């Protein structure tokens, strides 16, 4: 009889100690925010263009984390980012959704300074403060900071902003993957079996 009481007491004591430890750890090592959102956000291209239907990259990342948005709504990130998100979230890859836009080469906005009237509307639209100017002063875009989101184009009353594709330079150019032609072709096993069956 004593034995069973001892056993219960020891188990209860053990439970109490471990519970206290867990309780302490959950407050001591509390993680602020959702680390998954940060991970998703770090994959997104940060153009803040809103093409995904959310007001910026972070809100979209939050929506993905809550499973409220699909992973294929970001045209600037393109195919590569969808693959990365699929890998991170353990989801299946799906092609970029057409209703959200198409993948384009990197572009930056340019203001035609002859036409600009200095209305500051584009400055208010720019999500990354890449436009410099003041009321009735000509505006200009800091090319290095421009993410190519195109948000400055609709507000411009005089249509003086246009998008130009950023050309490769010797320092940004990338080597191509060497050609993959082979002398001995590798035939997928599945095909062989199918041809045998046929």
């Amino acid at each position: 009889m004593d034995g069973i009481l001892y056993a219960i007491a020891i188990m209860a004591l053990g439970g109490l100690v471990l519970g206290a430890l867990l309780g302490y750890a959950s407050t001591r090592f509390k993680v602020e925010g959702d680390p998954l959102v940060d991970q998703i956000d770090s994959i997104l291209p940060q153009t803040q263009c809103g093409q995904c239907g959310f007001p910026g990259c972070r809100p979209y990342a939050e929506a993905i984390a809550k499973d409220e948005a699909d992973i294929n709504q970001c045209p600037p990130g393109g195919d590569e980012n969808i693959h990365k998100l699929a890998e991170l979230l353990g989801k299946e890859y799906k092609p970029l959704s057409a209703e959200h836009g198409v993948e384009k080469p990197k572009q930056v906005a340019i203001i035609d300074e002859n036409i600009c009237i200095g209305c500051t509307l584009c400055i208010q639209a720019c999500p990354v403060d890449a436009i410099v100017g003041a009321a009735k002063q000509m505006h200009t875009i800091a090319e290095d900071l421009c993410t190519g989101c195109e948000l400055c184009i609709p507000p411009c009353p005089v249509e003086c902003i246009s998008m130009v594709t950023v050309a490769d330079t010797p320092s940004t150019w990338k080597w191509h993957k060497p050609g993959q032609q082979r002398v001995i072709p590798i035939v997928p096993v599945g095909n062989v079996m199918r041809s045998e069956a046929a």
Partner: protein
Amino acid sequence: MKLFTFKGGIKPDPNKTRSTQLPIAQAPLVDRYIVPLHQNIGGTPRPIVQVGDRVLKGQRLGDADGWVSAAVHSPTSGTVVEIGPHIIPHPSGLPTDCVVIEADGRDTWIERQPFDLDRATPEQVREYLRDMGIVGMGGAVFPSHVKLSVPRGKQIEQLIINGAECEPFISCDDRLMREQAQEVIQGSVLFGQLVNAGKILIGVEDNKPEAIAALNAAQQQLNAPVDIVTVPTIYPTGGAKELIRVLTGKEVPGSMRSTDFGVQVFNVATVQSGWRAITYGEPLISRIVTISGAVAEARNWSVPIGMPIGSLVKLAQPRTDHDGVIMGGPMMGFRISTDNAPVIKSTNSLIVHAPGLFPPKPAELPCIRCGSCAEACPQELQPFELYWWSRASKFDKLENYKLFDCIECGCCDYVCPSHIPLVNYFRFAKSEIQAEAREKQIADAARERHEFRQARADREKLEKAERLAKANAARQAAGTTLTASGPATASTNPDDAPDISSHPDQASTPIAVDNHPVLDAAAKQAAIAAAAERARLKREQHAVKSGDTSH
């Protein structure tokens, strides 16, 4: 002196005898020189001349941008006719900004003055070398003044002057050491002084006995504190890390600099041009270029930087069936896309290519896991692992296999029985990883700016709300009590209001307690409409004008 060995390496046919028979010749003046602004690792120099400017030989064309950068100079006297994109010798075949100079044929030097070393601080010497455009001439074009600044608390025990010149076909350093041995020795002593080196070693491969003899004679004549060390001919002994290994036995890991181990390395041509800059005030405006391959007369030329490669190759009488030019050697060089590309500070050799010069590269076969590449790799990497992950585009794995320790020497390519272009895979993977890092940096900056902007918007909203609350409180106080102080406080409020209404997105919020802001907004609307109309007219005029000129 006891020598050490590095693992791997290969022994290709040197092919140097042809081009070393004749002395260095001075390339004749041509009409046009194309001087790329960006010829160094680091920042792109900013142009300091304008189209139409007269320039003299040795005049600075571009100023160093930042510490890791070096100036560029005019190779001859003449007129700046263009500053714009031109194709440079680069694997990409892409253009970059160049200063084009039309030579006046007089080749007049700018006033040159020797640099007073005794009165200058080490900092001033480095700035001077930066402004003289001195960069590493062995191929890496790293600004030399940066390498001359020894980190605090570090002592350079051995300064190594690299005269190994291990790559086949290239003989520019060989001829330089034979003909300018004294200047090479004096340059080595100078650089030794600048880094306060304990010992100065000049490493030369044993297939250059004439160069070694010339250096020894010059060393004795000058009684210079320099050791000329003969090293065995194994490719790639001329690699900085390999030469350090051979001469000192020190192995420098990829994550560290050689200065951490008390060693610094400069090429022989670099110390010679640095010495000329200090002694004669001559900036780096020419270099020695080996021309060989499918030509009648293979030899070395002293060539002004900016001379079109086509005009230079013509001097060597290329075979009629030549079909391109390779810059650099057969192991690490690349095909140049156009003859108009200029000679730059890193052009050590031009090999005129013709069918039959090199055996055609057989088609790529599957990797058979033989491990020959790992045996040949002088950096002790495992190229087969790097190849698999590069091929599969699994770039994160490549970090574990130290992709960035690869010096792209091509030993693995050379020994691969399956003829896999391994180095091309590594270059592809490296450029993808670098591009990704660049994009990440841009994205991080954009995120930061966006977050800051949002924080600012929130702060402004809060401030506005506070102001409004204060204004309302004051108005209520004025309305109920009608004290003498009431109207005074109220009168200051409208001053705040128009200020806020200048933000259209905030204009709709209920701040229009007075009528003035609303009136203002209407006037502004009218002004914007008028301006838009003016701009439209202007644009139409532009369109008409450009339409006229295009006809």
